[in-house]
C-alpha cells in the first residue's frame, strides 16, 4: 500500500498502450497513447477552423468556441460570446435599488446569492448603513450553501462532460437537497432575491438548524463518494491530469480569479485576504494546489465543498440572535402589523416599493468571492432612486479568457475538459 499510484500505473501499462501521465505539471510530456512517440509539431499550413457550440452540450449554455485545428490538435481557440446577452446592466439602470437584487440575481444563475450579496453590499456602502449581525451571519450561511450547490453543479457537469455520466446523477442528488434547503429558507430554488440592501428578506424558518445539519451530513457523505468514484480513477486521471495547464503569471495576466488562480499554487481567496461578512470570525482553509491543470481545479472545488460545510456548521452553532434586517426606515419597510394600523406606515411602505429609496451620489466597487472567483459590483449613483451605472465584474467573463493559455497545443477532446474546468456560467458572461 506504500505506493498505490505506482502500482496502479504498473497495472495499466499492459499491452504498451496506456501510459498515465506524470502527476506533476513539470515534465508533463504528452505522448500518443495508441502509437507511442511524441506529438508532432502542428502543420500551420493545413489547418481547419471549426465551431464548437453555441449549441454544444458541453459548453454549459451558449458558448461558441472557434477552434483552429491541425487534425486533432488545437492550434488556437477563440471564445465567441454574447448569445445570452440580455442587457442586464442596462436593465439595472431602469430599476430602483429595491428592485435591483431581482435583476442581478439572474446573472450567475448557479450562485445567485453571491450576486445579490455583492449588489446589496455596494448599495449599503453608498448608503453608509450597517447591517445587523444576524443578517450578516444569515448572508454568510446562504452564500456558503450556495457555494456548495454551485460546486456540486460543477462536479455533476464536469463528470458528465468527461464521460463519467453517473457523476451527473450523484452530483444532482446532493444539489437537489441543497436547493431544497435554500427553498425552505428563501422560498425559491434559484434567483432568490433574498439578500437585499439592508439585510435579508426574512428570518430563518423554524427547524433550520436540523435541516442544515442534515444537509451537511448528506453533502459530506456525497463528497466522499465522488472522491471514491473519481479522484483515484485511472480513466479520470488520464482525462484530467496535466491537461489545460495554466501558470500563475498567465492566470494573473488574463484576469483569472477563483479556483483557476488557486489551482496554480496561488492561495488567494477574498474571504481570507479581504474579509467581508463575518469570514474573519469563522475557521476555514483556502484550498489550493500547484499544478494548474483540470484535475487540480476539480480537486479544489471538491474540497471547497467541505470547507463550505465547515463554515455552514459554524453558522449553525454560532448564529447570533437579533434582527435580520436593518431598522433604518429609509431602506426597510415598516413591519406588516404596522401597515394595518397606521396610514403613515402604509404610505411609507407604498412609497418604498413604488419609488424606492434615494442613494447619496457617489461611486463604489465592492468585491466578494463567488464560487467562480471575484465578483465585483461597480455602482454609480447620482442621488436618485436608480443607479446611473450598475456594472458587474463577472468572474466567468474573465475566467473564460484563460482558455487562451490552456487550450492551444492540446487535443480537441481536452478542450471540452478545459471549458468544463473553467466552469463558466454564460448568464454571467453575457449579462
Amino acid at each position, binding site marked *: 500500500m506504500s505506493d498505490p499510484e505506482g502500482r496502479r500505473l504498473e497495472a495499466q501499462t499492459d499491452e504498451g498502450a496506456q501510459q498515465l501521465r506524470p502527476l506533476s505539471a513539470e515534465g508533463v510530456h504528452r505522448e500518443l497513447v495508441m502509437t507511442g512517440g511524441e506529438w508532432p509539431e502542428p502543420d500551420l499550413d493545413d489547418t481547419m477552423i471549426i465551431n464548437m457550440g453555441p449549441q454544444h452540450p458541453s459548453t454549459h449554455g451558449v458558448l461558441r468556441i472557434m477552434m483552429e485545428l491541425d487534425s486533432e490538435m488545437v492550434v488556437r481557440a477563440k471564445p465567441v460570446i*454574447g448569445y445570452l*446577452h440580455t442587457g442586464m*446592466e*442596462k436593465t439595472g439602470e431602469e430599476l430602483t435599488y429595491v428592485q435591483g437584487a431581482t435583476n442581478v440575481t439572474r446573472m450567475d444563475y448557479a450562485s445567485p446569492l453571491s450576486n445579490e450579496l455583492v449588489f446589496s453590499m455596494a448599495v449599503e456602502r453608498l448608503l*453608509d448603513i450597517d447591517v445587523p449581525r444576524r443578517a450578516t451571519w444569515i448572508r454568510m450561511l446562504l452564500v456558503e450553501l450556495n457555494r456548495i450547490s454551485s460546486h456540486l453543479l460543477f462536479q455533476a457537469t464536469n463528470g458528465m462532460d468527461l464521460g463519467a455520466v453517473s457523476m451527473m446523477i450523484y452530483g444532482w442528488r446532493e444539489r437537489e437537497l441543497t436547493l431544497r434547503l435554500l427553498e425552505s429558507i428563501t422560498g425559491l430554488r434559484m434567483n432568490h432575491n433574498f439578500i437585499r440592501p439592508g439585510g435579508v428578506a426574512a428570518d430563518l424558518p423554524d427547524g433550520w438548524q436540523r435541516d442544515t445539519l442534515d444537509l451537511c451530513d448528506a453533502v459530506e457523505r456525497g463528497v466522499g463518494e465522488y472522491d471514491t468514484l473519481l479522484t483515484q480513477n485511472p480513466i479520470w486521471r488520464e482525462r484530467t491530469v496535466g491537461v489545460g495547464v495554466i501558470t500563475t503569471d498567465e492566470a*494573473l495576466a488574463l484576469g483569472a480569479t477563483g479556483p483557476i488562480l488557486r489551482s496554480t499554487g496561488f492561495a488567494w481567496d477574498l474571504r481570507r485576504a479581504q474579509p467581508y461578512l463575518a469570514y474573519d470570525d469563522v475557521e476555514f482553509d483556502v484550498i489550493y494546489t500547484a499544478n494548474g491543470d483540470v484535475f487540480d481545479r476539480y480537486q479544489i472545488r471538491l474540497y471547497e465543498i467541505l470547507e463550505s460545510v465547515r463554515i455552514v456548521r459554524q453558522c449553525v452553532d454560532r448564529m447570533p440572535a437579533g434582527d435580520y434586517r436593518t431598522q433604518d426606515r429609509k431602506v426597510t419597510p415598516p413591519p406588516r402589523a404596522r401597515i394595518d394600523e397606521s396610514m403613515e406606515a402604509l404610505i411609507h411602505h407604498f412609497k418604498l416599493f413604488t419609488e424606492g429609496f434615494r442613494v447619496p451620489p457617489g*461611486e463604489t466597487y465592492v468585491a466578494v468571492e463567488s464560487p467562480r472567483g471575484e465578483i465585483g459590483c461597480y455602482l454609480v449613483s447620482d442621488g436618485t432612486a436608480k443607479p446611473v451605472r450598475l*456594472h458587474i*465584474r463577472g468572474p466567468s467573463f*474573465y475566467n473564460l479568457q484563460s482558455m487562451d493559455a490552456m487550450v492551444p497545443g492540446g487535443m480537441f477532446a481536452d478542450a471540452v475538459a478545459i471549458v468544463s474546468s473553467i466552469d463558466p456560467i454564460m448568464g454571467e458572461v453575457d449579462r
Partner: protein
Amino acid sequence: MPDDDTTDAAREEDHEVPVDDEVGAALVERFDGAVFVSSHGQPVVYVPRDAWHDVAAWLQGEQQFTQCLDVTAVDHLVDEARIVPAGVEAERYEVVANFLSHPRNRRIRVITEVPTDDPAVASLTDLSPGASFAEREVYDLFGITFAGHPDLTRILMPDDWVGFPLRKDDAPARVPVTFKGDPSPR
C-alpha cells in the same frame, strides 16, 4: 469615534493632501494632473487621459499591482448630481479600471475622463491581456475605442448592431418587440 465635524474636516483635507493611501500619494506625486480622492474609504485616482496607459504600467511595474481586475465605463450624460473632485475637468464618459495588488493586499481604482467628440483611450491589453474582453465590452456598449487593442470588435451585441446600448441617449425600445397581440411598441 470622532464626531461629524472633525470627520468632515478630515475628508476635505484628504482632497488636498492624500495621506491615507501611500500608492495614491505616490501616484499624484509621479503624474501631473492626477487627483486622489477617497471614495467611501476606497482609494480612487483621476488621471489625465494621455497618462492612462503610463499609470497602469507604473502601477504594474513599480507598485506591484499584479492584476487588472476590471475595465468599464460610465456615461454621465444625464446625471442629476455628478461628483467630480476639484482639479478634474468633467467629460461625458469616464473609463474606470480596478487594480489589485496581491502582495500588498490593496486595491486602487483609476478613472479617466473621456470626451464625447473623441471617445478613445489607450488600451491596457499589452500590459494585461485580461483587459481584452472588458475593453471590447466597453467598445461594444459605449462606443469608446481603445488604441492598440488587437481585436476591437463587438463582443456582446451582434456584429451588425447599430448604436451603443449603454449610452444614455440610446433608446432602449428602439427595436420593437413583436409579441402577438402587443398593442403598440413602448
